[in-house]
Structure formats: structure tokens, C-alpha cells
């Protein structure tokens, strides 16, 4: 929701790859930058498994749904036992009576239960709300405070932690380093736990865009304006290249369509989508939402670099996408929504 078209950043990019990306790449302006992206995409070794599970309601046995999904993905006790797990929900801006803005607290609870059942040494929840400075208020108004209090799950405000600064592995933005909250340095698994939503800058916001929320507001502003200013697509890619989530669990039980990520309408999709590879998970979500992932700039660019979005490279387990597809409303008035609709086979 902030100006992200930095003319200087755009000028620094060449146009050679814009042709490859077509319309969706126009906002990215990639080229002439350092990092590994300039090597170009390589889809040959990219394979991913994504699990789509039905979940019609939040009062369903969500921990069983998530546990089954993780088993399908091959996540074993041995992989989790003794580990520190950070769950990163999307809590951008709560508002009373608008539960469809944020990851539902019962999804967070269910995920925490599953990782504890798998033997995690500790499970913590962390978020740096993108719009609001009062994180306690965000917890209260989103309903997450009740769950955390009842289940004694620790929470970390990622907007105000000491810093852990890393070289920017993507280098699509002009930022040579990225500063993360230090708590992320001490965890073994980062699980992106987004809401399934349309987005008026990026088309969709899913597990990759959700990683914006780990960037501390006190360094990048409220909203995370430095990153918007650098170009939102490039920033998503840089963050996910530097600190990729190891798992993604998307709350698509009730998502948001229209003018997301805040002002849109509730959209029941009745799914939880899980996977180890964020681009593949997000591409699968897009297909469920009736959106062509190849037309989402950062997903198209991530494919072959951070994972894959190609249907032929993704082994789908659980429910069939075609049976669950429910088109999320796209608005003509929003430039980022134009031309995103996935053609029906």
C-alpha cells in the first residue's frame, strides 16, 4: 500500500529479461545486478511436493489435517525432534469483525500442536506487523493473544528485536545487507503461515510475500517502506533468497479476494496448502484461486531459482486442485490484478 516504484531502481535494471518475464516482469525490472539471479533460471533440477488438504471450518480438527499433510510431505519426527520452530503468521493489520485479514489463530494453534507433537524442543510465534506499531494490540484484536496465553506459546515481536544482519543473497534490490530479527538466528525451522489473499501491489500474498513480515519495522518502517521503495517484487525475492522459510502452511479456509491485503472480502476456499518449497506452494494456491502463477512477477522469477512454479514439476498430493478451484475476485481497477486469471482447461 505504499509507493514502490523507485525510478532509480528501475533505471538500474536492463531490459533483457523483461522480455522473458513479459507483462508480469515489467514491475520487476531485473537485470544488471549482482547475486545469483543473473545466472538465469534452471528448472531441470526443480521438483517439489505440495499437499492440498480440505478444511471447511476453523473448528475442524486442524491439527490432524496439518499432521497428515506434513506426513505426506515426508516431514518426520527425526527432522523436528529437539528443534526450535518459529511460526510466522500474517497479522498485517487486525480489525474487529474482519478475521479474513489475518492468519486465523486456530491455524496457528494447530500448527504449534503438530510441531510439539513431532518433538520440537520449542515452538514460538513471531510477527512484525506491517502497518501497526502496537504489536500487543495486534495480538489482542486478532484473537491470537487468547490462543498464545491459553497454550503458553511464546511470541516474539519481530519489529523490535536486536538485529541479525546478513549479506543480501539476492541483490535484486540495492540493499547490500538485510537486517533480520536476531530471534530468527536461533531457530532451526521457519514456517511461513500466511493467509490466502489477493494483493493490490503483488497480485497475491502467500508464503513468500508473508516473509515481508519478518523484516523489522524499526529498521524498514511502518509500512515496510524501504522495501516497497526498493521495489516490492525484488524485495520479496531478496528476502526469500536470503532467509527462505523451510515450510509453508497456508490458511486458505477463509481467505480474502478483491482489494487485498486489507480491504478485500472474505472468500471461503476451504483448504490448507502445505509444502517445503515456497514458490511451489504459492503457485498451487494461485491455481486454487484461479490465478495464473506465471503472471505473478515474483513467482515467475523465483521459478528455477528458488524453487518451481511449473505444474509439471510439482507433485500434488491430497486433494485435486481442479476440484477445489474457486476463483478469487480480481478487480479491473487494480493494475496488479489485470490479466491474472488462469484459463480453465
Amino acid at each position, binding site marked *: 500500500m505504499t509507493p514502490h516504484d523507485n525510478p532509480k531502481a528501475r533505471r538500474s535494471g536492463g531490459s533483457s529479461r523483461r522480455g522473458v518475464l513479459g507483462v508480469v516482469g515489467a514491475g520487476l525490472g531485473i537485470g544488471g545486478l549482482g547475486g545469483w539471479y543473473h545466472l538465469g533460471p534452471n528448472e531441470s533440477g526443480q521438483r517439489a511436493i505440495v499437499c492440498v488438504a480440505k478444511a471447511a471450518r476453523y473448528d475442524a480438527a486442524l491439527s490432524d489435517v496439518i499432521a497428515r499433510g506434513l506426513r505426506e510431505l515426508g516431514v518426520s519426527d527425526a527432522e523436528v525432534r529437539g528443534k526450535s520452530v518459529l511460526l510466522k503468521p500474517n497479522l498485517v493489520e487486525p480489525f474487529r469483525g474482519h478475521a479474513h485479514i489475518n492468519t486465523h489463530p486456530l491455524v496457528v494453534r494447530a500448527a504449534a500442536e503438530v510441531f510439539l507433537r513431532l518433538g520440537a524442543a520449542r515452538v514460538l510465534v513471531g510477527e512484525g506487523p506491517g502497518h501497526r*506499531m502496537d504489536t500487543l494490540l495486534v495480538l489482542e484484536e486478532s484473537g491470537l493473544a487468547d490462543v498464545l496465553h491459553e497454550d503458553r506459546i511464546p511470541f516474539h515481536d519481530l519489529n523490535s528485536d536486536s538485529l541479525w544482519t546478513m549479506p543480501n543473497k539476492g541483490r535484486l534490490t540495492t540493499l547490500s545487507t538485510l537486517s533480520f530479527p536476531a530471534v530468527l538466528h536461533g531457530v532451526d525451522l521457519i514456517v511461513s503461515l500466511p493467509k490466502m489473499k489477493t494483493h493490490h501491489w503483488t497480485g497475491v500474498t502467500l508464503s513468500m510475500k508473508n516473509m515481508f513480515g519478518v523484516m523489522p519495522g524499526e529498521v524498514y518502517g511502518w509500512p515496510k517502506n524501504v522495501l516497497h521503495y526498493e521495489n516490492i517484487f525484488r524485495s520479496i525475492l531478496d528476502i526469500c533468497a536470503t532467509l527462505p522459510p523451510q515450510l509453508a502452511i497456508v490458511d486458505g479456509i477463509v481467505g480474502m479476494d478483491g482489494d487485498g491485503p486489507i480491504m478485500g472480502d472474505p472468500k471461503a476456499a476451504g483448504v490448507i496448502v502445505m509444502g517445503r518449497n515456497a514458490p511451489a506452494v504459492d503457485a498451487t494456491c494461485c491455481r486454487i484461486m484461479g490465478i495464473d502463477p506465471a503472471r505473478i512477477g515474483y513467482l515467475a522469477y523465483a521459478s528455477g531459482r528458488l524453487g518451481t512454479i511449473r505444474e509439471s514439476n510439482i507433485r500434488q498430493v491430497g486433494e485435486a486442485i481442479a476440484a477445489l478451484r474457486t476463483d478469487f475476485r480480481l478487480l479491473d481497477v487494480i493494475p496488479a490484478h489485470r490479466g491474472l486469471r488462469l484459463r480453465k482447461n
Partner: protein
Amino acid sequence: MTVYPALRPRASAVCFHKEGAPTTTTDYRSQHAIGAAWKALYENGLPDGGFGLRPGGEFRPDSTAWAIIAMAAGFGEDKVAPACGRLCQAQQADGRVPLFPSHPDVVWPTALAAIAWALARERTKELARACDFLVAHSERRTAVDPSGPVSHAQAARGWPWVLNSYSWVFPTGSALLALNLAGHSGHVRASEAVDVLLERQLRGGGWNYGNAESFGQALRPFPDTTGLALSALAGHATAAAVARSLDYLEGEACRVRTPWTLGWALLGLSSWDKRPQSADDWIDKSLDRQQRLGSYDTNALAVLLTASAARRGLRGRAPEGRP
């Protein structure tokens, strides 16, 4: 490039109303809760005079500034001078006070430091340098796409969180508050800040982080930034110009109990002589909620304690010819 007039040294324009906080609380329980809150705040103090965000934390200029603001409003005067001194050590030669030395562009604590020094009536040289930095720096604009979700007309320049980025309500409001308290409320940058804030005011009243509309839909206000904006605009804007925001904030203050937001809501209302009668009870309830939410950090606690003590809010002297 716009060249802004340099600041001239001014006599302190601080008009800060100290009330001796606990004497006005209604019962022993409130006094006890407020006393415990002050104790908790002091426990976040460091041996060098500065404050960390949490007990055992490292020095932070924002936390130190908030603690000074609270102490200048209420108690702990013996701790004000050492804290101001420690805050000076974080100031760089050009006047900025970055959040971390490793991140010199993260300059938003500069306004907080200026507010703290002004309210404490300490460190006039450092205060002047901080104000010089504030008036010399502003947002970096980009062309806003008229078909995008940002609604700003961008007639005036505000302040960004981080150098070379866009302006938002909190950094602009806190910079205006700093200029007000330092006696520069008549400066052209203060006038521009007023314009920016009024432009970002939501149609139905209140402010959020700083964008009023998205594709024709009015966005939703936040009570904390509304309280800050109203605090900064006191003495600049007419009551009519902010009437809806005051109405909104009066409604929210009854409801919110987290320390940061309640503190700013009360400061905003108090700046316009609308401090709710139940304010002390609400502060008490907010402090009670630590049993559920955990101990509050320095910044949130300090804002709440400032609201407890500063019963007329954070006010500067109005420039001549202004309301």
C-alpha cells in the same frame, strides 16, 4: 531543491504540565500500580544512564528518549540528566540520532531525542543540532502512480522513518512535536508537517500509518497514530479541522487497553482538553493486563506513564497568529 531556512536559537517553548502523577489517582490500588510501573521502568535503566527496551537489554536511543519523556512528565528527575547525557552519545555530528550506529539512515529516533531533551530542558546544544537535522532532511519523493493504491497529493514534505524513503504519520508527527516543543512551531517545515498530517487524515476521522484511501475505499484509522497526530497538531489546527478525529479517538480510548495505544490516545485527547474522566482507571486496567500479556517494554510503559502524568498532553507554544 528546496532550501529551508535555518533555525534560530529560541528560548524554550516547552509548556509541559506536570501534575505529580499519583496524587490524582483515585485510590490506593492505582497508586500502587503506578508506583510499580515506575519501578519497572527504572529497572530497564542501564548503569551508564541509558535505557534498554527490556530488562538486560542493550542501550537504545528510542527507549532512552521515551524514558526521559516519562520521567520529565512524572518522576525520576534524578535519572533525567544521566539519561540525557547517554542519549547525547548516540547523536552524530550532523545532529541525527540513529537507532543503531550500524544503521545510520534509520533516523526516526532523532525526533524522539529532541522531544526528550526539550521536555527535560537539558542539552540545548544537542537539541538545536537535532532540530537542525530535522529541518534539513525530508522524505524522498517518487512519482505516485495515479492508478495505484496511494492517494497522496504530495503537496508538502513530511518525514520518513528511514532516510531516502517516503513520509509517514509517525515520523512526521513526532518531528512536528519536536519542533513545537523546541520552540520552532512557526518554521516552514512545521507548517509543511501540518499540511502533510491534515492531508493524510482519514475522511471519517483519525489517522493510520499514513495512507487515507485504497482504490477509492477509505482505509481504517489507528488510535495510536491518531493520538500522536492530534498531539502534534495541537496549536496548529482548528478544533473543527480535527473534530472527527477527536470523536474517533474518544470512542477508541474507552476500548483499547494496551499501553502504547492507550497512552497515545490519552495524550492526543489531553492535548485538546478532552482527557477522559476515567483515564486513570483505564491506565490501571492497562497495567493489570501485564499479568496476561507479560511485562511491558520500556517504550510502551513510558508512553503510558507519560499519559498518566501529562494531563494536558504534550504541548508546545503556538506560533503567533495561529490558534
